[in-house]
């Protein structure tokens, strides 16, 4: 009888397609908005999250989030190293600088300077070798930029990917690309260039203080709270664990921008409109088929069987619409990998949207089922 139930639904082509399309549309919009939001959130904390092996980030006490850079004196690194419980501490610079390509094109880039000795904070490279960052004038460039904003001019007037050994200028300083890396997209999507901390001082000589962060590794037996307290009280700096810094940066972004409201509103509207249409259509289908269900009851279908039939119809059409929607988003992402559109389809998002869509199907199915179960089978003679 379950195949009959499915044929009853699928046979009503207009309503069936309308429900599937509405749910697919709802799923697609909610997922797309959610994936966009997740991508934005991740990009705000990417810089903190992608540097591994660091327990603590030390900043100026007034620095609220990762991009709120209030530079410190280089001496801060040495002072942090003197704190009991600190295994090591290295400097990290983050700032902007102007890059110029051989054809005269200028591009603002994000410059990151890592500790010369340890190269802690350097990215995982995909071309070249990590120690090459110590070669004179060496920089690493992210692959997306090497392909896009920093594409290298060719003699024929075209462009090609920026390659290892290519040269450009950073703030009128000659630099050589010695490696490329696949970096997470930043919120501003500007090219990211890595070099050593000492070289940053040469590239950005006009600023007296250059130290953006001090990256700290704690000793195994260190008391995190105590180290934070000492850094705060004795050094007048602010220390946060990696997770704290990442979370605080994200929280600042959420609280101080309208992104949640805007994207969330779109997702809610998609849920209400698309889900509402799908729910109403399914409910109308149930109403239209009340007589058929009454006939089945008269012919001896049990209540349990009718429940199973409605559940199959509701669940089937819901999951079909949901699958089409998720498939649409996945296809959209796959087809746009090189377009710069950043969407993050996570399992938690997929699960959450599934829950929302199933809620629509369950609500509509429950309302319809309630009417079916309260049907008077004698209505078949009327």
């Amino acid at each position, binding site marked *: 009888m379950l195949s009959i139930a499915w044929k009853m639904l699928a046979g009503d082509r207009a309503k069936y397609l309308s429900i599937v399309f509405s749910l697919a549309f709802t799923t697609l919009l909610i997922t797309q908005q959610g994936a966009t939001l997740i991508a934005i959130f991740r990009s705000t904390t990417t810089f903190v999250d992608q540097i591994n092996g660091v327990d603590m980030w030390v900043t100026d006490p007034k620095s609220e989030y990762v991009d709120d850079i209030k530079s410190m004196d280089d001496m801060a690194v040495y002072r942090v190293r003197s704190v009991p419980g600190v295994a090591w501490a290295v400097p990290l610079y983050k700032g902007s600088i102007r890059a110029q390509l051989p054809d005269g094109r200028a591009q603002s880039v994000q410059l990151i300077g890592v500790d010369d000795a340890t190269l802690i904070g350097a990215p995982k490279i995909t071309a070249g070798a990590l120690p090459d960052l110590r070669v004179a004038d060496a920089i690493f460039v992210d692959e997306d930029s090497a392909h896009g904003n920093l594409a290298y001019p060719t003699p024929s007037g075209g462009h090609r990917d920026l390659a290892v050994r290519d040269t450009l200028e950073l703030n009128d300083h000659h630099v050589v690309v010695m490696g490329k890396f696949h970096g997470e997209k930043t919120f501003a999507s500007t090219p990211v260039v890595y070099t050593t901390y000492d070289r940053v001082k040469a590239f950005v000589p006009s600023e007296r203080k250059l130290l953006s962060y001090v990256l700290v590794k704690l000793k195994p037996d260190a008391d995190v709270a105590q180290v934070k307290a000492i850094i705060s009280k004795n050094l007048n700096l602010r220390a946060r664990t990696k997770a704290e810094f990442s979370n605080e940066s994200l929280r600042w972004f959420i609280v101080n921008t309208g992104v949640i409201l805007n994207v969330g509103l779109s997702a809610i509207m998609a849920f209400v409109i698309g889900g509402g249409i799908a729910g109403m259509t399914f409910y109308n289908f149930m109403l239209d088929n009340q007589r058929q269900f009454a006939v089945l009851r008269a*012919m001896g279908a049990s209540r349990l069987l009718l429940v199973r039939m409605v559940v199959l119809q509701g669940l089937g059409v819901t999951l079909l619409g949901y699958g089409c929607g998720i498939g649409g988003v996945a296809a959209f992402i796959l087809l746009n990998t090189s377009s710069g559109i950043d969407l993050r389809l996570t399992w938690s998002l997929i699960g959450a949207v599934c829950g929302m869509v199933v809620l629509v199907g369950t609500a509509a199915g429950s309302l319809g089922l309630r009417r079916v179960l309260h049907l008077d089978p004698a209505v078949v003679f009327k």
Partner: protein
Amino acid sequence: MPALREIDLDIRAREILFLVGPSGCGKTTLISVIAGLLRPDTGRSVLFGTDPEALSPATAAAFRRDNIGFVFQSYNLIPQLSVQDNVMIPLLLQGNRHSIAAAAARAALVAVGLGQHADKTPSELSGGQQQRVAIARAIIHSPKLIVCDEPTSALDHKTGQEIMHLLRGLAHDRGTTLIVVTHDQRIYDYADRITEMDDGRIVSIREPAEWTDGGRK
């Protein structure tokens, strides 16, 4: 105001009983009670030795499923399903396998003269053909009782006669009891007995020979 009053009716096995009377006289209510779709406020209805009222809802549903076939005035076929799928339903409700039900449905459709229309949808058939499908659905599980509500009222005279001829033949062949609610005096000859109702009561039980074209003798 009770819909039925003082009903005392004994229906014989394998007979064709017509219920006739003016609109609102209680014919439909009576067959609903007989079929176990309505429960009487007082009194009892016993079908094949079983009082459906004494059964749980699930058991009563199973009792209807196994013992009763229905033919409705408006056919009540499921429009989204093929003719064959519609006819299969009683067997599927009994838990038979799809392949078995499909084979039986094809045989039932052949029996009602619609063997070549199995894959069509009800809307592709004429009214008479749809009623034949409904009959095939009613007989496919060989019920002991078939309840027919105005089976010919939506059909022209010739088709109505054909439908009743078919119903009577199938009922006799299978030893099925047939209860037919009708206003159509042109088919009274197909009855073994005619029960006339008025105002919720049975006013007479006669044989067709006791009726004239214009009404009672």
